[in-house]
């Protein structure tokens, strides 16, 4: 593979960002002169503008007051709105975290147990196929109905979209373990539990990690959809409120925050994977 200089790559990335942001910021202004070139979609009424989004962010986050001055009374500003940007982000993050962790743990354990037992996997197979055919997100309204508009319904929605993803990957991983490894362990005196701990789990890890990056996005989607349907707090709720006011900038601020949250969470998973699966990468320098 040809290697490109890092600077060249970053240069291109900056250029692409600059072009997209410029078109977004000033593209619609060209409409008066070149109406055939500029689609309706660029109307700031729908998608706002980077500068307006930034201003809106400063206001929503209580960093500046409505008048544009630096906000001396940060605390008071926050207290005025229960679902301010910070609180909304915190609550959405918290529910995403719990949905993700419970989903990963339960999916992993179930995948291991069924993957290692021919009998159990034969018994449960039709049920799993059936439940897996339901688009899980369609259950969100029912979940909100059953668990109320509090945090629990968001966690459950998030859990239900994550658990299957992780389950299937773990299951496949546990099925495809090289028998040579389990035989070697057994002949060295490993008990069934030791085999699970020292052979099954490590060799399934690569499969599990393959599902974690999508799982974290799914967890976030689950929480947001839950908040759309019924919630008093959270970023999903912020989006709904801004939409009701016809305020594109407000929605965009929430979307950008979600994007940042997603990027940070994925990066954490990447770091964890790079560490736990370091044996897959080790190669000397050429």
């Amino acid at each position, binding site marked *: 593979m040809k290697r490109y200089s890092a600077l060249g790559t970053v240069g291109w990335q900056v250029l692409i960002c600059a072009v997209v942001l410029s078109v977004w910021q000033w593209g619609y202004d060209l409409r008066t002169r070149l109406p055939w070139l500029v689609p309706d979609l660029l109307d700031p009424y729908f998608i706002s503008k980077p500068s307006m989004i930034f201003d809106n962010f400063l206001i929503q986050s209580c960093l500046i007051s409505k008048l544009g001055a630096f906000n001396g009374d940060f605390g008071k500003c926050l207290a005025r709105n229960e679902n301010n940007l910070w609180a909304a982000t915190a609550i959405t993050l918290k529910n995403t975290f719990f949905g993700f962790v419970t989903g990963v743990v339960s999916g992993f354990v179930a995948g291991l147990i069924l993957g290692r037992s021919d009998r159990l996997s034969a018994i449960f197979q039709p049920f799993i196929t059936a439940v897996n055919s339901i688009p899980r997100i369609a259950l969100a309204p029912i979940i909100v109905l059953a668990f109320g508009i509090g945090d629990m319904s968001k966690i459950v929605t998030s859990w239900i979209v994550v658990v299957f993803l992780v389950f299937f990957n773990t299951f496949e991983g546990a099925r495809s373990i*090289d028998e*040579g*490894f389990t*035989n*070697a*362990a*057994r*002949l*060295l*005196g*490993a008990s069934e539990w*030791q085999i699970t701990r*020292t*052979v099954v789990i*490590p*060799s399934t*890890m690569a499969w599990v990690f393959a599902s974690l990056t999508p799982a974290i996005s799914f967890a976030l989607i689950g929480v947001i959809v839950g908040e759309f349907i019924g919630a008093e707090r959270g970023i999903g709720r912020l989006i709904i409120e801004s939409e009701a006011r016809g305020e594109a900038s407000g929605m965009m601020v929430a979307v950008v925050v979600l994007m940042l949250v997603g990027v940070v969470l994925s990066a954490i998973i990447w770091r964890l994977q790079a560490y736990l*699966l*370091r*044996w*897959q990468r*080790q*190669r*000397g320098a050429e």
Partner: protein
Amino acid sequence: MSTLETSVTTSSRASAERRVEVKGLSKSFQLAKTTIEAVRDVSFDVRRGEFVALLGPSGSGKSTVLNMIASLIRSSGGEILIDGKRVVPGKATPDVGYVFQRDTLFPWRTVGDNIGYGLELSGVPASERKERIAECVAQAGLRGFENAYPSALSGGMRQRAALMRTLIVEPQILLMDEPFGALDTHTKIDMHEVLLRIWEREQQTVLFVTHDLGEALTLADRIILFSARPGRIKDMFEVDFVRPRDAVKVRETEHYAELFQHIWHSLGEEFVKGRSV
């Protein structure tokens, strides 16, 4: 069976006690609609402390026999006794160590942790484990690679690490399936020395599969020659060089050349058949 069995003075070290008994063993595999007969009516004994080489062409069922002795697969007929007790498929016999033909080092463990795996299982404290790993690493010529992952090793280095992973738990019965198949001649003879010294010290009962007649002659007390598929015992040869042996010097003796020629002829026939099957 063989003319050379006239040299009755078997290896003095091997006691007459039978450690492994294989009686009328056979094995067929079902592949799609065809049945592959891999092993047919194989019987032999291995005495305590004896070093036996299984020699035969590819596909003659040598690995299959070892797998059955290690209780990894079920036989289709016959039985296997270890110390007079029947081997039950799926239930590993303690004391049996197996060096597999295929690379089964755990890729997620470093070389040192792979070698120390058996000790870890039995709860040997980390400090003692470290010492014994260092010893094994040195014996296998892997110094400096303790913290590397197997993916960074050559095929031959992996084989040596796998050998040490088995030897470190000091099994009294050793099944070895072409453990040095991937080594160059020089390293191979080095490893023969290492193995001979360990064996002289520990006096394990060894079943050693190989394609290499020179290797079998260097190491074994007895060579069992397998026929091309289906695997049967075609011949047995006593190898009565004095012990302790020097892996290099033994090859230079006249007796070695004689035995080599004698067995080579028998072996040649089977390899030709093996290829045409």
